[in-house]
């Protein structure tokens, strides 16, 4: 990680999910941003820089949080950033349409003594639904700078935000709770004598709500005095056992109602807009399922499969590499490098350039790139929460909840990345089941691109393949839901309004994912090429391929296919591409082709995915999944071969 100069002041962006925080971040920072895990956690935080009045600021975009009291891992990280980074300004982005719901967190931030600037975002939408918001009045009541804006539309309010940050002065509003609650807060905060970043009042409220992380911090600061604090806190919690959380929430709500009095005026009698009707269609199963199929057909099949894996790959692989780059590089190497082994390493059958670079840039880049574009468009439109709601009932049957649809869909792009994203699922049971299903039955875009190309020549093969994938997915999911211990998941999700995807958001999201993909995966390509090269030179590869021949015979496949399976482990798509070569050589009949494609899709994830699985789930779980998936892949392949031969389908 690069070193930051000590003097640089920090701006921290906080806010609920779906309030346009990342758009604000992009508008503030321009293009130079880095995304990295927050130290010691698995949660990503974006950093960027901006200059206001010739002073440099570091801008941090935190994960979405609903309250200062964290529940999810993301919220915990967001709060840790607030606690540890000593910000110059905390920019709280809130949704103009839902002021009443978002202000309690503003209240908590101000209460904590943080230097808050409030950005009331999405003003355009609020005005569209007939809301009038008196920003100066709200500013007067909150006593911190408040700016109204619509960052998604022409960066309205950006200049004012920059001005408010540049000339920040600390306000000193206090909001009083009901007197009985105040008395308890005073009593405990008087016991806190250490030095804290957050205001004592705020710490007290979090202690009362049993916040373990805050309790730990207070224990560290107070030392011997902590026992007194703890017993005072426990006394109060017990005395208010009936409704403490609720009381605090309701008190905040009451205060916010008072703050908003006169601030918001609502014209009524609005017609539901077309976008609301469209939103309703996506959530009605009768219209939602056909819409989903349309999205899959145009987004995945046409754009990724047709355009990415077809047009662009043909051009890059067929024209750029085959006709220009490869002959040129090979010629160069043959001319200047006399050693056979080095020649092989660079431009041989499994050479770094001919295999590694060519696959990475000519095949994977266009396919994964187009997938990430499609994914970002869908993501930015707000479709995923609706899809999650639609599939929740089905996903419950396989031990997941609707939320898991996001890593599952991402898996169609890159299973490795999707395995990382399973972190966002709440219970370890859901994470295990999702990891297993990703490893087994979700083909990644690179693999799917090749397989679609492979099977499209054989009528019916695609249907058999699809039926096998769906069947295995559901069957294994159903079984896993029975076997993996843990509680039944609950589903709750905010449904953000549908909106037109914004070009800048789509580009930033796509580029961020592409960057991750190349940083994490490209080196593995190279390692895989080296391993295959070493295997070829030493004869180990030949031995491994031969050792696999009996398995191939069981599946009714020619022994040439075993090379595809061995390569499949190094990259899922290497394997599929290996089959492609076999097919073009005419070595596979339709049944063999289908069996090979099904087995290969189910077969062990690529090396990268296995490594990520190990990192995320630990050795035990990942090894169990590894062997389970391998066993299942070959048994399903064997059974399918028998079935196809017996029934004569595809013969």
């Amino acid at each position, binding site marked *: 990680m690069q070193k930051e100069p000590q003097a640089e002041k920090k701006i921290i962006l906080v806010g609920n999910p779906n309030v346009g925080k990342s758009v604000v971040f992009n508008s503030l920072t321009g293009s130079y941003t880095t995304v990295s895990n927050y130290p010691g956690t698995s949660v990503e935080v974006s950093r960027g820089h901006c200059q206001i009045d010739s002073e440099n600021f570091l801008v941090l975009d935190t994960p979405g949080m609903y309250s200062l009291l964290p*529940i999810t891992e993301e919220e915990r990280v967001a709060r840790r950033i607030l606690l540890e980074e000593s910000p110059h300004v905390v920019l709280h982005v809130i949704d103009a349409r839902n002021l009443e*719901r978002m202000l309690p967190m503003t209240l908590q931030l101000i209460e904590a003594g943080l230097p808050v600037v409030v950005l009331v975002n999405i003003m355009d939408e609020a005005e569209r*639904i007939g809301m009038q918001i008196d920003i100066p009045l709200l500013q007067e009541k909150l006593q911190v700078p408040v700016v109204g804006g619509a960052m998604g539309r022409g960066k309205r309010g950006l200049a004012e935000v920059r001005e408010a940050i540049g000339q920040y002065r600390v306000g000193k509003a206090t909001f009083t709770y009901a007197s009985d609650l105040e008395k308890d807060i005073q009593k405990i905060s008087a016991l806190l004598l250490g030095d804290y970043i957050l205001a004592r009042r705020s710490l007290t409220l979090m202690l009362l709500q049993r916040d373990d992380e805050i309790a730990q911090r207070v224990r560290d600061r107070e030392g011997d005095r902590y026992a007194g604090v703890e017993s005072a806190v426990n006394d109060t919690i017990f005395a208010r056992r009936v409704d403490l*959380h609720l009381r605090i929430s309701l008190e905040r*709500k009451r205060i916010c109602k008072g703050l908003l009095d006169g601030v918001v005026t609502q014209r009524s009698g609005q017609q539901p807009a077309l976008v609301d009707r469209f939103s309703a269609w996506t*959530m009605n199963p009768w219209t939602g399922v056909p819409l989903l199929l349309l999205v899959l057909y145009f987004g995945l099949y046409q754009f990724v499969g047709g355009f990415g894996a077809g047009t662009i790959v043909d051009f890059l692989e067929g024209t750029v590499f085959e006709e220009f780059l490869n002959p040129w590089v090979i010629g160069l190497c043959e001319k200047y490098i006399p050693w056979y082994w080095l020649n092989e390493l660079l431009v041989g059958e499994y050479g770094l350039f001919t295999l590694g670079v060519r696959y990475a840039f000519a095949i994977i880049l266009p396919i994964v790139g187009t997938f990430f574009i499609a994914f970002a468009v869908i993501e930015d439109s707000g479709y995923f929460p609706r899809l999650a709601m639609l599939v929740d*009932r089905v996903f419950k049957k396989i031990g997941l909840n609707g939320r898991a649809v996001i890593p599952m869909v991402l898996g169609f792009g890159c299973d490795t990345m999707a395995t990382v994203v399973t972190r966002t699922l709440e219970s370890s049971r859901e994470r295990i089941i999702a990891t297993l299903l990703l490893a087994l039955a979700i083909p990644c875009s690179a693999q799917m691109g090749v397989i679609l190309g492979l099977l499209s020549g054989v009528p019916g093969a695609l249907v058999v393949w699809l039926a096998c994938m769906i069947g295995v997915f559901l069957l294994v999911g159903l079984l896993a839901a029975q076997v993996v211990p843990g509680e039944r998941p609950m589903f*709750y999700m*905010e449904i953000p*309004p549908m909106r037109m995807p914004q070009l800048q958001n789509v580009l930033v999201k796509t580029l961020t994912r592409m960057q991750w993909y190349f940083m994490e995966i490209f080196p593995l390509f190279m390692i895989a090429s080296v391993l295959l090269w070493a295997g070829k030179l030493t004869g180990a590869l030949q031995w491994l391929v031969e050792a696999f021949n009996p398995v191939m015979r069981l599946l009714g496949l020619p022994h040439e296919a075993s090379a595809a399976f061995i390569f499949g482990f190094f990259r899922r798509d290497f394997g599929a591409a290996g089959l492609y070569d076999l097919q073009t050589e005419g070595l596979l009949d339709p049944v063999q082709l289908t069996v090979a494609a099904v087995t290969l899709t189910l077969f062990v994830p690529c090396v990268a995915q296995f490594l990520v699985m190990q990192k995320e789930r630990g050795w035990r779980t990942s090894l169990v999944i590894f062997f389970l998936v391998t066993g299942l892949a070959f048994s399903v392949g064997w059974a399918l071969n028998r079935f196809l031969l017996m029934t004569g389908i595809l013969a």
Partner: protein
Amino acid sequence: MIVSAKAEEILESLWISTEEKGEDAAHFERLGIAPTDEGLAELVRLAFVEVHGEWVRLRKEGREEARMTVRRHRLAERLMMDILDIKGASGDERACEFEHLLHHGVDTKICTLLNHPTTCPHGKPIPPGSCCEQARQDGEVGVVALTELKAGERGEIAYLAATDVSKMQKLMSMGVLPGSDLLVTRTFPSYIFKVGHSEFAVDGDLAREIFVRKA
């Protein structure tokens, strides 16, 4: 006037035999009593029942008392199962002890708390009290789970039944708070409701824990 616990048990059995099974009278054996039973003597003294040989008959004067006794017993059962979560034989036993305490308007309060239930957990009818009649006349629907609302119906969130504290906190911090108005827009495949200008999706399990006062 309050009769003894023993007398209440007899009245209860008598009500079930005569009102619900349509028999004319109940035998001593059926009531599980001896001719010298104190409770029986008490009821005869109050002219609530009359004894013919080994058969006991409920008189018109005793009907109302018997009816309310049955009502208290079944309300107690509901309270055990629904609110205190004591189920099975142990719930039945506790209910038998508890019913004798439901006098002086306590039954009315419990009936209101339970939102005027019409059947006991075993499916038998609970004779309605004056509070049920009053609620019906006022068109009160009381507090129901979110799952009872149809698409397009509105209500005010009354309370969140906390089984998982952190999930409840999540709902609260998203603004799903008692006192907020809510509009249900879909009930299948999941429940979707609007609070203010925000929309939320929850599954049936969670929807059952959000209680709403229907508008």
